[in-house]
């Protein structure tokens, strides 16, 4: 324990973002932030819709600006806990560096809220479907029952494992109803259905490859041959036989020209010379597109998908 606190004091200096636990300053800051938060929330609730648009644009811009600064502004390298900034540039750099983990935590918390929003949205939709007895409302019942059951069992199991007797639950003989429920619903059902859903892709791939992968043109033929070579190279047994055959033809001469036609080497050539540069080009294009889209979102120029 002593090691823990001395380590934290050493490497985690207290700052605006990192108050001492249970200190009056920290409690005061939490109280002030909470009050400010409610004031902002109240203001947003009464604000006209037109104004909300500008508030969202401002928050988006500031959030983006922080990460632009994080990437572009000089940040301290090899900083030690006792280091102090020497000038305004370093002060800003230190501030950005100290603030980034806090911003990351903000985004993690907002991400957590999104899960809650998702649950609310699902419940809202499916309860309405059940009460109005719309088409397939029975599936909605199954969904809600499953959701509630897995939340109760999962949360109950988690609370028990966090408690003083949590370590005992590593033995199945100590499990109760909630533990068995959680195990059945998560490991026994959800995880298995997840695997089953994904395994169905194999059937679609086979069917699609059979029906659509045809050598109808020169380009399609080249693609087909290249794909065939790469697929064959994934089959170790076939690769072994092919390479053995080439080796025999070359009479075990490692420098023979024919050694270039080993399946491994042809596939490697295809991957290194054709596939990798092609994907790099695609990635580069996607990157530029993302940059453009990111700028549009950051500056709130992107309006598609929202209220026009």
């Amino acid at each position, binding site marked *: 324990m002593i*090691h*823990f606190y001395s*380590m*934290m004091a*050493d*490497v*985690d200096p207290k700052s605006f973002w990192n108050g001492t636990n249970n200190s009056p300053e920290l409690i005061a800051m939490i109280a002030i932030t909470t009050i400010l938060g409610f004031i902002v929330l109240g203001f947003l609730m009464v604000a006209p819709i037109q104004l909300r648009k500008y508030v969202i644009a401002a928050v988006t811009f500031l959030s983006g600006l922080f*990460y632009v600064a*994080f990437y572009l502004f000089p*940040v301290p390298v090899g900083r030690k806990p006792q280091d102090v900034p020497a000038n305004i540039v370093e002060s800003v750099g230190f501030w950005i*560096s*100290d603030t*980034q*983990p*806090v*911003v*990351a*935590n903000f*985004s*993690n918390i*907002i*991400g957590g809220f*999104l*899960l809650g929003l998702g649950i609310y949205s699902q419940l809202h939709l499916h309860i309405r479907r059940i009460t109005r007895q719309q088409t397939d409302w029975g599936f909605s019942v199954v969904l809600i029952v499953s959701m509630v059951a897995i939340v109760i069992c999962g949360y109950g199991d988690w609370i028990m494992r*966090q408690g*003083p007797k*949590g*370590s005992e639950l*590593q033995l199945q003989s100590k499990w109760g109803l909630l533990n068995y429920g959680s195990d059945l619903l*998560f*490991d026994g059902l959800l*995880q298995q259905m*997840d*695997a089953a859903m*994904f*395994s169905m892709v194999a*059937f679609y*791939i*086979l*069917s699609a*490859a*059979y029906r659509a*992968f*045809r*050598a109808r043109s020169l380009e399609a033929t080249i693609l*087909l041959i290249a794909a*065939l070579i790469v*697929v*064959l190279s994934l*089959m*170790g*047994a*076939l*690769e*072994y036989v092919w390479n053995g055959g080439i080796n025999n033809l070359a009479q075990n001469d490692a420098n023979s020209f024919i050694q270039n036609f080993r399946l*491994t080497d042809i596939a490697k050539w295809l991957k*290194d010379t054709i596939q*990798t540069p092609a*994907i*790099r080009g695609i990635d580069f294009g996607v990157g530029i597109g993302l940059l453009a889209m990111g700028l549009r979102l950051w500056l709130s120029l992107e309006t598609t998908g929202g209220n026009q």
Partner: protein
Amino acid sequence: MADATTPEMSLGEKLQALPKWSLYVVLVILTSVPLFAKLEVPNKPVEASIDFYGKIMAVPDGSRILVGSDWTNSTRGESKGEMKVLLRILMRKNVKFAFYCFDPQAPQVVRDTIREVNAERIARQEKPYRPFDDYVSLGYFPNAEGTCNAINNNLLAAFSGKKDTPENSGPKDVFESPVFAGVKSVKDFQLLALITASSTNTVTLERIKKIPLLFMVTGVMVPENQNYYASNQIVGLAGGLKGVYDLEQLMEHGINNPGPEMIPSSKWGVVPGFKGALNSGMGTAYYPTLHFALLLLIVAILTGNVGMFLAKKQAKKGAA
């Protein structure tokens, strides 16, 4: 009045119109039967897998690494095999690890996998890995981008407030764990191994720059990640089931270990394997299945194409 009888299909047309169900039945049979037979398929590990093994074996015994895990059971055929291989190596080298996840289901999936590998060790009378003392769960982080930046920028702040539960105790701050003893930044971890089936590979690659990265990805992600391996942005890559099988073979034979089964590599010296230990796993078990599935895929594509050519030929003949 039109003729109601259907004209008889030519061989080419028949080959192009195999019913879906017949393909599905053959697929089920071909992928199921090999699971019941223990077959060892000849294999030559690829360079990326050899580098992965070499790098992980170069981690000093008793040190620590960071593990990112973002897979769930939808890709367990590949990802679980990868995770098990990684865990077996780490546990045999007594390397401690802390894991974090960007998928809500992933932390439990990792714990389940650790439990399975621990059960293997207990059955072989080896010391199981204990939570908190040997490994730490840092839990789920909804925002991958911000968290990866924070890990790179200030690891302690990124994981501050996270708790994990040791054996015979309530939850404790993760920084009290021996895994984090003396850790001040991400550089105090030897490397980061990421097992992923999603886009967190690029998120990690773009943001965590202070330690070497090893990726374990699914088969469909290999072409994309081959880029990062070729440009040395990642120092090792295990891709799909082939990657798992490669690593299992490397665990058995090592690199450049003299013998009939030697796996040669000009980049590495002699890297030992774990001869006699439990090295075969999901890679060895599923690789024959992959062979049969790929074989069926090739046969299906060839059948369709042969059918197309025959039909075209017949149509030309008819027109003439």
